[in-house]
């Protein structure tokens, strides 16, 4: 077996306990969990009806018009790409630099990423005027269009992230195959199939570690790529508010914030729902809290650059846009997002009492909702400050208030992300069993898993 840590913890958990704790969430589906997923499914059905309505009537049922041609759908896309960025980057950077504390939450972070990026692609399709012509992109694709770059890089990221979620799960799947003996037949078949005849030999671990390492290195440019290219969808246009050279790093830093907040919320829910207090401990909350402060400070720095510099010059069209954000129509939302979603979270999380599960989860909720609204503020208001005045169009061309259909479809997309995160836990261990066992100093985890539970 590959090198493992010597047991340094004073109170070492029995291996059978680890198996039990981490396999249990798969075995039993609680009532509240069932209610929760029925609720999500209802939202998705409702959103699907809204989408069918949109397909029939056209995008006219949204509030989008010629001077607000991108609305909440594109905001959703940018938001979901943002949320998906941090998952693999976080685990890759920490693992490659030999930092161990993130082991129990690595799969949570990766799952958030996979679920979000899956629905990011869908939110682009939802925005298309002619989704029936989606095959035109591979058929007639032109590489000069940033959309083609974005589709390319997001799909590469999706494929790589599924592989990266799966690879470190192989030993766990073998453990499930051998240990979860009372599983229904289809689950057994699934585990046997996906475990790829894993035996836990040194040779296998060597291969697995090498594969993981290569993927962790490769995912970094791709992860940075997805959000940089997404920022270019805006920055390549000569439009006030988008015409910015720092949009790439500005978006990436914002994605770190949204993604970290999403991981914190997921940690809270999984910890509460599956009683994982022994695995997701105070240390993890403390570190994630500090991480959120760090990434938020970086984001604050880019915000200052993005708004203060054009705000100082007040060039004619910039001035219109900045006035609308600072003191005009968009001001309540803008300052609400900046203060409640960034500045106050930074201040609170500096203090240790706030780096506890419940306060942190609430703070992260504010940050995440703020993150969505921030994307909305990046996408929409800019379009109302075109080069020439908006004239000879009806009143509803001058404002953008999302319609019920848009809100329904948005909620369905979010529900989809949550549903994947809910269902995943019913099939696979949300905390990597073998990695925890290795860190606790257990060898031959696979052999132990084969022993019947009653003997312990």
């Amino acid at each position, binding site marked *: 077996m590959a090198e493992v840590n010597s047991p340094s913890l004073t109170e070492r958990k029995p291996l059978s306990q680890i198996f039990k704790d981490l396999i249990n969430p798969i075995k039993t589906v609680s009532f509240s969990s069932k209610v929760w997923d029925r609720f999500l499914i209802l939202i998705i059905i409702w959103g699907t009806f809204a989408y069918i309505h949109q397909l029939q009537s056209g995008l006219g049922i949204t509030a989008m018009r010629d001077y607000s041609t991108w609305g909440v759908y594109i905001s959703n896309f940018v938001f979901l790409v943002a949320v998906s960025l941090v998952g693999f980057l976080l685990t890759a950077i920490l693992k490659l630099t030999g930092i161990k504390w993130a082991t129990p939450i690595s799969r949570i972070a990766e799952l958030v990423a996979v679920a979000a990026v899956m629905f990011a692609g869908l939110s682009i399709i939802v*925005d298309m005027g002619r989704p029936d012509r989606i095959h035109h992109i591979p058929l007639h694709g032109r590489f000069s269009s940033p959309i083609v770059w974005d*589709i390319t890089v997001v799909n590469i990221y999706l494929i790589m992230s599924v592989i990266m979620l799966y690879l470190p799960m192989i030993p766990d799947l073998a453990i499930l195959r051998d240990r979860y003996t009372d599983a229904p037949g289809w689950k057994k078949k699934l585990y046997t199939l996906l475990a790829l005849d894993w035996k836990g030999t040194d040779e296998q671990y060597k291969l697995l570690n090498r594969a993981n390492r290569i993927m962790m290195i490769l995912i970094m440019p791709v992860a940075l790529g997805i959000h940089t290219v997404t920022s270019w969808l*805006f920055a390549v246009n000569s439009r006030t508010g988008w015409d910015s050279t720092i949009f790439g790093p500005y978006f990436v830093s914002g994605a770190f914030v949204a993604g970290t907040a999403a991981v914190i919320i997921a940690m809270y829910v999984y910890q509460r729902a599956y009683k994982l207090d022994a695995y997701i401990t105070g240390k993890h909350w403390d570190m994630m809290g500090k991480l959120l402060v760090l990434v938020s400070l970086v984001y604050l720095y880019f915000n200052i650059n993005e708004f203060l510099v054009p705000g100082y010059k007040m060039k004619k069209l910039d001035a219109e846009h900045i006035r609308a954000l600072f003191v005009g129509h968009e001001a309540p939302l803008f300052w609400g997002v900046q203060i409640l979603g960034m500045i106050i979270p930074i201040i609170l999380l500096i203090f240790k009492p706030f780096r506890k599960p419940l306060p942190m989860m609430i703070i992260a909720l504010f940050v995440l909702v703020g993150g969505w609204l921030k994307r909305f503020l990046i996408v929409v208001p800019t379009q109302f400050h075109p080069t020439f005045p908006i004239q000879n169009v009806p009143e509803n061309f001058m404002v953008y208030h999302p319609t019920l259909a848009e809100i329904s479809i948005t909620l369905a997309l979010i529900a989809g992300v949550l549903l994947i995160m809910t269902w995943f836990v019913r099939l696979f261990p949300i905390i990597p069993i073998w990695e925890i066992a290795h860190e606790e100093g257990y060898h031959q985890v696979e052999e132990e898993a084969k022993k019947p539970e009653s003997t312990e």
Partner: protein
Amino acid sequence: MLEFTKSETTEKKDRRDFLKMLGLTIGAAGAVTTFTSATLGATNLNSSKSTLSLIGPDGDLVEVDPAKLQMAEEIVSDSELLREYQRRGREGIPGKKWVMVIDLAKCQNARKCMEACQGAHELRPEQHHINVLRMQDTPDTAPYFMPKPCFHCDNPPCVKVCPVDATFKRQDGIVLIDNLRCIGCRFCVAGCPYSARIFQWSEPDMTEEEKLRTYDVELNVPQRKGTISKCLFSADRLRIGKLPYCVSACPNGVYWFGDKNEDAVTNGTTGETVRFSDLVRDNAGYTMHEEFGTKPQVFYLPAKDRRVPYDEANRMSTQN
């Protein structure tokens, strides 16, 4: 002088192939007609006329039996017609480089251009391929009216960002949009700094019969739900040697239109033709927001002798 001809001999071979495909061969020498004349001639058929004069491949007149032409028209299936429209629509008119000059000093907001344009392209009242804007550059200067079509930029941002080549720049300078290709992502709307583009948010108002018409990419008709539309410099009119709809409709002599290669532009109201370079130079012509680097091909002559009263302008500027 600006002279539009119906037949371009450079396209001879293509046309011959096309007509062969249609099964339209007339006369023993294999003389063929141009596509346009064939269809136009066929629709204008009159039973009292025994033969029809058409231009042959070498520019000579050929007398043909109308009955044969009518037969040919029946053979032209919708898909073949569409294929030809699409082919010539993408290719453009060889040797031309269309350019427009808008004299802001002349515009009195008659809006005949907007009406003609909306009628031809079957647009709703709120949809504009050309939009006459009330402009006021600074609070201290008098306002003026500014017709704003698509500028058919030589470095078009809309074309660069289109992921499927639905919007493209032709050899004659026209930026067109293919409503059968467009996926409705609206990146071009975001990309155009001049707000020249509109989107069909809902099903265009048409009868079922009207929907079945063969789509002409040079006219964007019939309009398609979920796709982009915009000013086309009336590419369909240029093909038959006429000035664009807006240019011909203007009662005030605002528009000049022509071929940059010929260095000649014709006024749509007066029919006067002048040198393009002289017109632009002598009247301090300019293009809009050159700083974007888009190289617009619509030139403006400054709004001297402004016609809107100053107070009226202030009232309007507070409205917007």
